[in-house]
């Protein structure tokens, strides 16, 4: 176990936002909560998956909903802690530790908020290795682990337990409905996992990965070096395209933010053009009508100058952006993994082809 420093938390916020691949919601409010908690003396420990016992009970948390809504409802650390306590009450047992369902975006920090209140460590792992828009898009779903139970919390006092659903899809549908009723945002504790399940199906060491990414950007900026090169180097990524945002189109359908953006090349990419489709997160990059990179590989659109991630909600005309790809976790590259999170899972009738093998 290792105690996270105040600096680790700042770096985690930057790295989690990059791993959000355009979605996942900004970690800023979670960071503000954590700064306050740390100022009040709270400290959070990070526990490696190899330190877990097989039958340890692990809470898996996230805030579901539209990032746009979080900008107004903000983040309250007590809500995610309450989601975990409500699950403990339902199960009649205490959790050994808490982990993120998705490391990407604000949800990468939610387990830290719960942990600060509950006094238990955070597991250095998640179930996406990035952010995805739907509950069945996890390594736990690929591993066919139980999708239930789930607790869902609204600050006005409504607490819902979904005791059982037959499939992950059903869990997504039912929990999404509740989330929508709550105002398109809910603090949730997902199906609890055992230590053995986390070791087998969890995506290991993604919290430390996010901290490493954030630190690479911060240090590059301090040295006036290229932060994007630092990100690529830190995580064996690939630079795809750099240019200026010339078009953004968004629409909200079925509770998702869908749309597209067009980037016109600058510098060495002058004369070129790419289009990126999104469903909360970046899904497919197209060039000359052909897919260049798609989920599950990570598509990150970074501010060309600061290296900080640009989200699908906030991207706007005129921004200078660099598109990079980071490798996906191996669990999603299997045929079963691709069923869950490949391009067809997002409605694109194209075969997945790794950009790293072309």
């Amino acid at each position: 176990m290792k105690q996270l420093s105040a600096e680790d938390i700042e770096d985690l916020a930057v790295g989690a936002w990059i791993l959000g691949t355009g979605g996942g919601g900004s970690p800023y409010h979670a960071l503000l909560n954590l700064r306050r908690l740390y100022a009040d003396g709270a400290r959070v420990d990070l526990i490696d998956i190899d330190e877990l016992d097989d039958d340890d009970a692990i809470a898996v948390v996230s805030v579901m909903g539209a990032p746009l809504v979080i900008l107004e409802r903000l983040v309250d650390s007590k809500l995610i802690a309450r989601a975990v306590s409500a699950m403990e009450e339902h199960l009649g047992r205490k959790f050994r530790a808490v982990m993120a369902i998705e490391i990407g975006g604000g949800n990468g920090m939610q387990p830290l908020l719960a942990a600060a209140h509950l006094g238990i460590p955070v597991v250095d792992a998640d179930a996406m290795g990035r952010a995805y828009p739907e509950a069945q898009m996890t390594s736990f779903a690929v591993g066919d682990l139980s999708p239930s139970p789930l607790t869902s919390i609204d600050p006005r006092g409504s607490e819902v337990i979904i005791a059982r659903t037959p499939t992950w899809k059903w869990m997504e549908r039912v929990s999404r409905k509740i989330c929508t009723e709550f105002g398109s945002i809910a603090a949730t504790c997902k199906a609890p996992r055992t230590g053995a399940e986390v070791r087998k199906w969890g995506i290991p060491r993604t919290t430390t990965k996010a901290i490493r990414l954030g630190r690479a950007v911060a240090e590059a900026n301090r040295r006036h070096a290229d932060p994007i090169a630092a990100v690529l180097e830190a995580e064996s990524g690939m630079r795809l395209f750099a240019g200026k945002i010339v078009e953004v189109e968004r629409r909200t359908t079925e509770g998702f933010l869908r749309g597209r953006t067009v980037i016109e090349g600058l510098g060495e990419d002058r004369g070129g053009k790419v289009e990126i489709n999104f469903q909360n997160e970046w899904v497919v990059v197209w060039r000359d009508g052909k897919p260049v990179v798609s989920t599950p590989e990570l598509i990150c659109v970074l501010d060309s100058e600061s290296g900080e991630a640009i989200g699908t909600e906030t991207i706007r005309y005129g921004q200078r952006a660099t598109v990079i790809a980071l490798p996906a976790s191996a669990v999603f590259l299997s045929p079963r993994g691709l069923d869950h999170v490949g391009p067809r899972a997002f409605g694109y009738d194209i075969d997945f082809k790794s950009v790293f093998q072309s």
Partner: protein
Amino acid sequence: MKRIGIDVGGTNTDAVLVAEGKVIHSVKAATTADITSGIVASIKALDAAVDLKSGVDALMIGTTHFINAVVQRRHLTRVAAIRVALPATGALPPFTGWPADLAALANGGAWQIEGGHDYDGRRFMPLDVAAARAAARQIRERGLKHAVVTAMFSPLDASDEEAIAAILREEIPGLSVTCSHLLGGIGLLERENAAILNASLIALAEETIGAFQQAKAQIGISAPLFVTQNDGTVAEAARAAAFPVFGFASGPTNSMRGAAYLSGIKEAIVVDVGGTTADFGHLRLGFPREANAVVHVGGVRTLFRMPDLISIGLGGGSHVDLDAMTIGPLSVGYRLTTDALVFGGDRLTATDVAVAGGLLDLGERRRVAHLGADTVNAVLRRAKEMIEDHVDRMKTGAGDVTLIAVGGGAFLVPETLQGVARVVRVEHGACANAVGAAIAQVSGEVDQVFQGTTRGEAIAAARKLADNRAVEAGADADSLVMVEAEDTPIAYLPGNAMRVRVKVVGDIRVT
């Protein structure tokens, strides 16, 4: 077309006359405590040199007064912040994330009450009117004069903010209330921060713009008064007084637009060294590069659309501390001509050091004869380091850049700097900001929800409204161009609802 552009800085008041696309004349006067006499003096000086009697179309004034107040933590009024969002958002109360020194000056207390809306227009919680009245009584007891109301999702439904504002005004006659929905879009904390900064500056803004009007009356100019805004456009005086934050970055914006206009250079770093601050910006295609959404003002996070700037406390009036070998951030400001050593004062300023070093001929040089060459060089080296460091921060690549040095304190910018290929200085450069003000355009903006139309129809309808507003604000209809169009869908409202924001700009109509 004949316009007077004026920039009221912390130290100098600059005035230019621009006619038929040319700078006819520029003058510099000291900013005065009452502001009015400085403006009057600058216009009189202008009038003495060129003919102002015939046909001035507009008087356009820009000022760094308001942002200086935040940077220097001066002239700020304490604000009561009322948040209408409980039981959500309680973990992050108003003033969260503020620098402690600024919060200490602006924080008149925070009240959180139940109410607000959700993103789909449904009510979040019933508005707690009793809590609002209780808050109002406490605000009255504390003797606060300015309040801010921020309700959840107020950009989509402003009714709770308006209801609370009405209650506050009823309970506390004369209270000034800033509603957050008038200052920004979605993003509760940033919108609230902007509203609080705005409210804490209103007293200063009313006084300042009142002084502008007085100056105009005194000099006998009947042309309308406009005040320049962050985006390089102008607003009519009354609106500008109610929303000082929209003029926050107008000084640097004007300098950069003026620097581009005067030099004909469209890609460069610009440094505008005034009496109190030095502002660094990046010109691209002749316009300031905009910051990426979140902008920190005096350490506070906001969502203003502003040029990407770094502002540091380095200017001609900056205090110099020889023991610590520091320059600024405090400045004698407009009291340069009384407080600086060369003018017989007792405060050592950057101007004094420049006079001692022979860079400037101002005041009485003998009064700084005691400053040795080593001392002078050490101070100037410190200024050079500060400038090099911030030019470097503004850079987007490793290569050397062109640096346009403008402003009355540009004498602090040396001819050679690390990372700079050449330093460009332009005629009338000391008044670049006033030139930028004089060439400013008028804008019209619309931000509203449309239903039952296609995206294209909604944008076209918004464009038409924006055009009308721009023309009402004094724009020439034929010159209008749409500079921004943004649409955000709002789910769960009937009829494919979308929020559309459109902005158009055009030239001032000459009648």
